[in-house]
């Protein structure tokens, strides 16, 4: 691990990781902590990270408003969590793979997906989950925790194929840690010692269920003990700390020291400022002011202060960034809203070759459309 304070938190005498305070590099005001070491990131990278966090926050606002206007379907916001998402994305090498949930829009973007592609599933397009060529991102996982064994399998496959330079990074939430698939996937990862990094975005809530009610274990990171792998807690609102920890975990996955196991479970401690999704009303289950403490450590503010303090950001650049973000977002929304799908494409790619019965079903649908027109399909229940 590359951060200095990590050593402080994990004295050699304690055999089990993950029970400590989260690792930080920036304090709540964006100043570098005295015992912390900055990760190796160029000035440009630092500014770019800031821009991406800002883009993510703006994306959230635009998406929520599109949903309110009925232009896209249910959306899972990420405000408060963009720092961790962007930072894990920056830690990845191009060849590494990312397995996201429905909430990791920013992580996907940083790892190469264009904004329009992020919006496609929200527009319900048939090909919504097709990923642009050469982007190493999997379609989002909605059934909770099911990506965990698959991430292990992908990392295992890369290892078997001798791609020593490739690791797999798997995101999931605090609620996901209760599912059997989390357990089975991490246990396999430990046993087969695969190059995978598991990032738990512990945003304190699984819809309405608070973290304390999700499990009686004190931390999520300490669950790593059950799999003989390392568990690390990091301040998920500190993009630099998340970057450093994730980067180190990816390095270890690819090049472990003697006797060290490759996989790591990272608990990125954070908070979901907003609703679970646009279909959710958090006032039913939590106090509005709970977020206040967390907002004091806001990732966007901290990065802004950090950059400003270090002379890397001023009002002009900020305005330039804002303009760029808005233009990008508008273009993406426009392009994706123009798209439509031919209904018969639902028969495409069910199998490599279309079996006879499906051929018949497709023909039936085609003939109905011809006979009655497409409007007839959209008549609603009276």
């Amino acid at each position: 691990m590359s951060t200095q304070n990590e050593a402080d938190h994990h004295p050699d005498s304690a055999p089990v990781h993950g029970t400590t305070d989260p690792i930080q590099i920036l304090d709540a005001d964006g100043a570098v902590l005295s015992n912390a070491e900055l990760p190796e990131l160029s000035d440009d990278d630092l500014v770019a990270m800031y821009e991406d966090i800002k883009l993510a926050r703006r994306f959230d606002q635009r998406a929520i408003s599109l949903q309110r206007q009925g232009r896209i379907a249910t959306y899972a916001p990420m405000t408060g969590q963009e720092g961790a998402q962007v930072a894990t994305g920056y830690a990845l090498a191009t060849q590494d793979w990312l397995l996201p949930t429905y909430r990791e829009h920013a992580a996907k973007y940083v790892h190469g997906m264009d904004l329009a592609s992020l919006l496609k599933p929200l527009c319900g397009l048939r090909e919504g989950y097709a990923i642009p060529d050469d982007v190493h991102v999997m379609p989002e996982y909605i059934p909770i925790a099911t990506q965990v064994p698959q991430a292990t399998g992908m990392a295992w496959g890369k290892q078997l194929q001798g791609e020593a330079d490739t690791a797999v990074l798997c995101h999931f939430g605090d609620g996901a840690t209760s599912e059997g698939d989390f357990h089975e996937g991490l246990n396999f990862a430990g046993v087969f010692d695969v190059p995978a990094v598991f990032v738990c975005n512990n945003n304190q809530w699984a819809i309405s269920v608070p973290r304390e009610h999700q499990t009686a274990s004190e931390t999520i990171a300490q669950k790593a003990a059950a799999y003989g792998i390392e568990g690390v807690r990091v301040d998920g609102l500190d993009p630099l700390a998340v970057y450093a920890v994730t980067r180190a975990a990816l390095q270890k996955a690819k090049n472990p020291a003697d006797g060290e196991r490759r996989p790591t479970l990272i608990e990125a401690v954070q908070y979901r400022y907003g609703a679970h999704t646009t279909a959710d009303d958090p006032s039913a289950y939590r106090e509005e002011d709970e977020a206040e403490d967390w907002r004091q450590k806001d990732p966007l503010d901290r990065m802004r202060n950090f950059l400003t303090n270090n002379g890397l950001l001023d009002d002009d650049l900020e305005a330039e960034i804002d303009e760029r973000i808005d233009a990008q977002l508008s273009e993406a929304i426009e392009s994706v809203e123009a798209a439509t799908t031919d209904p018969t494409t639902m028969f495409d790619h069910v199998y490599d070759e279309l079996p006879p019965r499906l051929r018949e079903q497709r023909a039936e649908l085609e003939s109905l459309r011809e006979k009655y027109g497409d409007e007839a399909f959209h008549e609603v229940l009276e």
Partner: protein
Amino acid sequence: MSSTSPDESRTAGDSQAGSAAETMNLVEAVRHALHTEMGRDERVMVLGEDVAENGGVFRATEGLLESFGDERVVDTPLAESGIVGTAIGLAMTDMRPVAELQFMGFAYPAFDQLVSHAARMRSRSHGQYTVPMVVRAPYGGGIRAPEHHSESKEAFFVHEPGLKVVVPSTPADAKGLLIASIRDPDPVVFLEPKLVYRAFREDVPTDAYETPLGEATVKREGTDVTVYTWGAMVHPTLIAADNVADEDGIDVEVVDLRTLSPLDVETLVDSFEKTGRAVVVHEAPKTAGLGAEIAATIQEETLLHQEAPITRVAGYDVPMPLHELEDYYLPQALRIQEGIRETVSF
């Protein structure tokens, strides 16, 4: 713990005569049924993801926490096998757990507990241990929900002996069937068509009536052709029936199965013996769906009455597409009418 003897209960028929009623939609009727049974029987408890503080993602359990406290209305960790597995354990200690799975598409992690245990405990223990549990799940498509949220794989559960499978299509049935399911001594998978949750309201008697399990109901009488269906598909079927009556003079009988397991073969067969023609409508993929069982059963029992092939109007054999295409995937009145016409003109 006190329980109420079953003979205090009355059937919907009884209760509608003279008793008070309230206008409700289906999700309100579900909530009302839970409230009613929890009030009557202390052993009844509700557990699942987001059912307590949040009142359920569809608000089906709203208010129960306030009325019955956090011992009987319980938010669980996010783990479906854990929910169903603990519910089986609770049921075996004579509690009456009503477990909610947030969507039918998330029932699969609990599939093993359902088929390997809930379904068999009575049989394997020769009647000694029983699982009087209800597993509720919102079910079916049509609300532009995200991927995996529109599943309607009732056939999976129907194929497992020992489970009962119930799907209401109206608020009044939802209440009566859910009460009957809670009182049923066997495990019941109770699938709630979420397209109907808020689609319409009707009068629902406020007393604690049961709509008996295992009994299909004739929603519309007719002589030319029978359409067998259940859940959300009952409604486009009734529209289709009106349309073909108006446009083609076809007199359609519509049978709402309500209980999918055990099947009410008698009502199915009686209707077919009258009409000699049938269409089965369901949302699930056609192949190996429950429509196959209904067609196979009818031709088995009544071939000599059969005047046309039994037609299936069903979901296509593809994964439910993202929402832009769901109107094309799901049977609509359009496709049902087409099926009826074809069957009648054979």
